[in-house]
Every structure is written in C-alpha cells, then in structure tokens.
C-alpha cells in the first residue's frame, strides 16, 4: 500500500536508473568480499541492503562512492555507473563524486564544530555559496530537510557534539544533504538511536526519497520493510535476491532469503 502511494507521488521517474553496477568484484587482499554483483539502483527510491554480518552489504555500499579507495588492500573490479558515467574512470574526482553521493554512517560523527559549521562545511569547500546570506540559506534549508531545524535554530553556535544521539544523526544527515547530493548512502543510520529518534529518521528517509535515491544498509529487517521500496539481500558476498520490498517480505523466491528474513539459520 505504501508503495502504491509512493508511485503515485513520484510518477514514472521512479523507473529511472541512478546507479548501474555490473559484475562488481571487491577484494580485501585475498578475500573475495563481493562476487559478481550486478544491480540497477533506481532514482527517487529507497533501496535497502540486508543480510547477515560479513555478507558484503556495507562493502558494496562503500564502493558506490569510492570509500573503499581509502583502504589500501581493497581492490574493486567491474563496472559501476552513476547516470551512465563510470565512477572509477581516471577523470572522475572522488571528492566531487562524494559530493554527489553523500553518506551517513552508523555512529553519528559530527565535526567538533558548531551546528552551523557542521552543515556549512561542505557547501564552503565545494564553493556552493556566494556569500554569507546564501550560506545561511543553505544551512537553514538543510537543517529543515533533516527535520531538526526547530530544535536547533536558537543555538546554531552550540557544538554539534553536544546534541543527543538522534539529533546528532539528523545533523549528519543535514550535513550530507547540504551539498545537494543526488544519492544518499546510509550505513545503519539508526542502530545507535532510540525508537523515537529511529522513527524520526525513517520519516526523514521517506521525505528525502522525493528528491534523492536513498540506499540504506540495515540489520533491522523491519526497518528495511518499513522504509524501502526495493530490497537487496546479500549472502556470503553474493547478491542473492533483489526485488520489490513487498515481494521480498511476503514471497521471496530464494530459500536463503526466506531463511534469513524469517529468522532461521541461513
């Protein structure tokens, strides 16, 4: 039902492919962590990556904005395209790529700066604002999008690290959306949050979907079911099954998927 509403709201654009990955392999030294993964990630859609610990879902997520480049022993092979552009091509600047493909991590990690500067940091280094007034505008807009503006608007100079866990995570989301990314990668964004903060972040994810392609790695099957329209199940480095979330949770095709989502030993 949620899916139907969504399709009405976002129209036919929902079928646009944002990321196209083909035959992707990731190695950590001799360890073959991702095996032959091919998947199309849609624009203006929330895609959930699920699977047991060590299945490769975070590794694959990190290869979408070349975060694996920062790990010396890590090697990525295969073809990953964002809007048709090979992201691993030599002419692609990883910093520019990460401005387009934002990321939110498991543990809220605000900079040890003011709330304002946390959000303003990205737009400043990417030169997105011409002057203070425009920067103020971006900061307010980003904090509003992250549903935290009302809670912090009177103390923008206070330290970001002084906020509660849920607020810190929403601040990190505000920071991620401040550079106007096209894709938002979220690696277990709610695992350090209480149920109320989790619900707020989930509500936020649903709103962000109208503008972005959102990919979320989660250990909570219920969260994947609640927030995503597409679900990908990873197991031992393989993409076992990828499809509509409603199908995955009512009638998965692969027995490994079924064993995992129903809480059996997979």
């Amino acid at each position, binding site marked *: 039902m949620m899916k139907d509403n969504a399709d009405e709201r976002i129209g036919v654009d929902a079928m646009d492919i944002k990321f196209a990955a083909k035959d992707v392999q990731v190695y950590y030294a001799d360890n073959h962590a991702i095996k032959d993964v091919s998947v199309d990630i849609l624009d203006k859609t929330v895609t959930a990556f699920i699977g047991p610990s060590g299945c490769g879902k975070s590794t694959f997520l990190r290869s979408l904005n070349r975060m694996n480049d920062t790990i010396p022993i890590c090697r990525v092979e295969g073809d990953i395209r964002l809007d048709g552009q090979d992201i691993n091509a030599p002419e692609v600047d990883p910093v520019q790529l990460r401005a387009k493909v934002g990321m939110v991590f498991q543990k809220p990690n605000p900079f040890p700066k003011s709330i304002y500067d946390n959000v303003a940091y990205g737009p400043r280094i990417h030169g997105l604002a011409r002057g203070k007034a425009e920067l103020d505008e971006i900061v307010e807009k980003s904090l509003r999008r992250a549903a935290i503006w009302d809670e912090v608007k009177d103390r923008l100079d206070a330290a970001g690290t002084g906020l509660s866990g849920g607020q810190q995570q929403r601040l990190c989301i505000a920071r991620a959306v401040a550079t106007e990314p096209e894709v938002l990668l979220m690696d277990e964004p709610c695992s350090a949050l209480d149920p109320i903060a989790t619900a707020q972040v989930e509500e936020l994810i649903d709103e962000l979907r109208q503008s972005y392609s959102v990919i979320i790695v989660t250990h909570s*099957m*219920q969260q994947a*079911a609640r927030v995503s329209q597409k679900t990908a199940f990873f197991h031992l480095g393989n993409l076992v099954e990828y499809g509509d979330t409603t199908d*995955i*949770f*009512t*009638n*998965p095709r692969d*027995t490994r*998927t*079924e*064993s995992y*989502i*129903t*809480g*059996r*030993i997979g």
Partner: protein
Amino acid sequence: MNDAHIAKAFDRDLEGVQAQVMKMGGLVEEAIRDSAKALKSRDVELAEQVRQGDRRIDELEDLINTQCAQVLALRQPAAGDLRTVLTVMKIAGNLERIGDYAKNLAKRTEVLSHMQPIEGASSAIKRMSKEVEKMLSDALDAYVRRDAALAEDVRHRDLEVDQMYNALFREFLTFMMEDPRNITACMHLHFIAKNIERMGDHVTSVADQVIYLATGQFPDESRPKDNQSIYRVDSVGEAEE
C-alpha cells in the same frame, strides 16, 4: 527452509496455532459426518450432539484468532511465516462457517424427524455430504503437506457438489409439484442441500488458502462451476412437463 527458527519459541507458537486448526478441522469433519448420519437415520439425539458440539468449534476459532494476533504483534512474521498466520486465520473462519451449516442441518433434522420421509432424499444428501467431507479432509491434508496440487484437485471437485445440488433442486421441485403435502419437508431438505453446497464453497476457499500458503500466489478464478443451470427458466419448465 524447513530449518527451525533461531528463536525456538517462535516455532512453538506457529506449531501451536496450526495444531489448533487441525483440531478444529477434525471436529468440523465429524460434525459434517454426524449431521448427515443423523438425518439419514432420523437420530434426534445425534443431531442434538452436533448442535451442542458447535460451541467447541466456535471457541477454537476465537482461540486461534487470539493466538494469531499475538504472533503478529510479538513476532512480526514475514514471508512463509506471515502466510502461515494469514491462512490459519482465514481457514479457521471457513471451518467455523462449515460448522454452522452442520449445526443448521442438525436443527432441520429434528424438525424433519416429525414428518413423512421423502424417498431417496436423505441418501442423496448423505452422498453429497460425504463428498464435501472428503474434500475437506483432502484440503486439510494438503495444508499439512503444503501440497498445492492436491489443493487444486479439491477446488475442481467442488463442481461435482454443485451438480449434486442442482440435481437435488430439480428432484425436490418435482416432489413438491407431485404432492403439496411434501412442501414443508422438501423446503427443509432443499435448505440442507443448499447448506452442504455452501460447505463445499468454504472447503474450496480452504484449498485456495493452501495454494497461497504453498506458492505465494492465489489461484486464478478458472475452476469449473455449475451454478447457472438451475437459474434457467427452461429448467423449471422441464420439471413441469
């Protein structure tokens, strides 16, 4: 996929509620059998037992619904587990309705026991109820074995029950026209036949649930039906000749 859940209590919950449905199915099969037997042998005492026994069936349905609500709330079942809970609830509803029809049959048996028997009617009704009882027994077997092919077979056999009902409908019409003194008994017998035909529809619905449980898809509506012939004007005309 036959692996146990990591949480063993989840397995116990699911097995528990399915055991209740099987128990309910057994009681309903017995109610069909006994009510038809009571009608044929004009056994008012047995009919009364069927009427009393329906309370137990209703209680089981309540228990199953409560347990299913608990599993949904506490365990958030997905995929095959979710389909198990959903189908258990629906099947319990179907069984409860079949039980009600058997009870109604027993009630009419008591009324009929004071009347002149209609020749051949109770034997034909017994054959019809026998078929429905067999269909139910197969549908429940199909449930236990998650056997979609057997469930599909049960769905198709409902056609025979429909045809038996249509034949009885014409027969009762003929008896009533032959002798108006037969009208009261034939009206009761007709309702009994109609109720057994409805039992067949509920058994078909149980079979539909088995197919959904086993395959994740509901069957299409292509099974053969015979519910048109008695509505034709010429079928009444034929009986008049």
